[in-house]
């Protein structure tokens, strides 16, 4: 008796050949100079807070925002550029304290699952069409940061906002460089499973705060 793999594949291969249909033209939408406005509007429609801030002032702005929400424990990634800025700019001041996600999850579960109230990650880019953040978590910035704490803060460069996922994948050559995990985040966690009533934060973050870093206009 052959194994299931052989049996399945041989059945599929013995099926009649069929013609390969053409791939009809399709182009994803483009927004020109409206990309940032679309990105912001879509994220806000999905219940996210979007702040456009300068590179110089974002750590302070964020400290004020989180302090205003009563956040005391903030998870951060010390090896990323954003993490280094936070460590430097928040040192010594009043406000939330930083906890580094710098060990394997197995050693950090209590902090991750129950204690951290917010986490700050970088976003590799943004997508205007859908109001999405592109996250490529990795060794320096673990996956659960954008998922377990009730507030997720993402820092994204304005210059990295593109029109569509299709454009992003093509322009950045994703097909040759897929990371362990690539994620699009388009708002806080939500569900409509109960009578199609929207509720936020059912499993992931209840709030998503997006800091768009770029030239203040």
């Amino acid at each position, binding site marked *: 008796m052959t194994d299931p793999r052989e049996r399945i594949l041989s059945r*599929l291969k013995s099926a009649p050949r069929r013609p390969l249909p053409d791939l009809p033209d399709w182009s994803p939408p483009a927004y020109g100079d409206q990309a940032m406005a679309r990105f912001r509007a879509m994220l806000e429609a999905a219940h996210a807070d979007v702040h456009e801030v300068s590179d110089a002032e974002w750590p302070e702005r964020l400290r004020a925002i989180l302090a205003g929400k009563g956040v005391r424990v903030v998870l951060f990634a010390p090896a990323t550029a954003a993490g280094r800025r936070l460590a430097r700019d928040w040192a010594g001041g009043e406000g939330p304290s930083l906890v580094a996600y710098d060990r394997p999850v197995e050693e950090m579960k209590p902090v991750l699952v129950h204690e951290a109230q917010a986490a700050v990650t970088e976003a590799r880019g943004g997508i205007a069409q859908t109001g999405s953040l592109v996250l490529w978590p990795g060794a320096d910035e673990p996956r659960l940061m954008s998922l377990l704490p009730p507030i997720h803060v993402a820092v994204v460069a304005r210059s990295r906002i593109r029109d569509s996922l299709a454009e992003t994948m093509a322009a950045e050559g994703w097909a040759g460089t897929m990371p362990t995990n690539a*994620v699009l985040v388009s708002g806080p966690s939500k569900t409509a499973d109960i009578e199609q009533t929207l509720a936020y934060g059912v499993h992931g973050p209840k709030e998503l705060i997006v800091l768009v870093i770029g030239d203040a206009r």
Partner: protein
Amino acid sequence: MAAEARVSDFGGKAHVALNDPKLRANFRRAMDGLMAKRAAQFDDPAEWTALRARGAAIRARALARLPDLLERLEANLTRNGITVHWAETPAEANAAVLGILRQAGAKRVIKGKSMVTEEIHLNAHLEANGITAVESDLGEYIIQLAGQAPSHIVMPCIHMNKVEIAELFADKIEGQTYTEDVDELCAAARKALRDRFADADAGISGVNFAVAETGTLVLIENEGNGRLSTTLPPLHIAVTGIEKVVERLDDVAPLLSLLPRSATGQIITTYVNMISSPRKAGEKDGPRQVHLVLLDNGRSRVYADVQLADTLRCIRCAACMNHCPVYTRVGGHTYTFTYPGPIGKILTPQLEGLDCAGDQPHASSLCGACAEVCPVQIPIPDLLARLRTEAVRPASPAVRGGGSGRSLADTLGWAGWTAMYSSPRLYGLSSRMMGLFGNLIPAWMPMLKQWTRVRTKPRFAGKSLHQIARERGFSND
């Protein structure tokens, strides 16, 4: 473990559902909402037409090369460190999952939403083998607490209203007091499931698209439970049907632009989760092992028929059921098997056999609302008609249970019909007889009895159009 033998009883179950006003109201409200939200997403017909043509072609092209793409997918997943398992039957798939869990010593499983694991009844199999699988998608969690099956492939508990859910939570969740507040109900689920995620030895999920080119599993969801299930536990097992493969990563963007918009009227789901490998050296989280179980369960037989293979294009958006006038009135449980609605009516008889689900292709007025909204252009009414044909065709090899719908009465009835309508002379004679005596047929006669229960008896005209045309001098040629 022997699979539970089930036979479709569409008429019987529909009778129960149709007489349940609460159920009818729950579905009608939900489907009206979903139809309106979808329509708002596709308000530009040109964009819809182009995008849908692209989506349909992507799926058709993937199917045209299915065996090659599966081999490529397997090679790339393996290169990425993801282990691939093949299962011909639900029993093999269940055994594969159980084997992986046992090898890892896993006892507690957290699950993301997956219709394929519903199809193989994985939870029951694990339970019977001492492993607890907790559903974490809110809708799935609710129906698991209620001991029910999903009634919709995207919104599993759509048949329940919040009063029913409030009662269920108060009854089944420790320390939960009765509340109909949706935010509070969600918070209760979050609290109850938080430690289940943290304690789980393994996470099990489905897959929306498996990308052959890169060896990537794409999963979409709104709650974050899918990402948690595939990130927090040390072991992740994904289970999917062999048809879910697409060729290139570029294919994902147009399909993603079709799926959530068709399903729930969202431009995108909150999370799009693309998994290409287990945790790599230096990474601090993510599962250390990732497995993919590829399930056949009859799909390769569906594939063998070029027309019926269109069934396998499906991306499980549920737009067909959201727009189906039958599904809206009878709900998902009437379909007995895992996949309800129009897609279920074509898929189930092919997977389970026409001998046990042959009534489903007939439970349709062939109105075509499903095909109109299908984002990958599956010609569902044509496939329903084809399955009706296979059911009455002598010794049909194309579909399991083919020919099982044949009966002497049916054969004779249609032979008589054909004799009448293929002979102008016989037709003329019969229509004249009907004109003269048809109205004397009593309302208790078989078909008339069903008809007149809610309608008046149709009246035969005294003269047929044939007669009138002759009398009025309309030319015959």
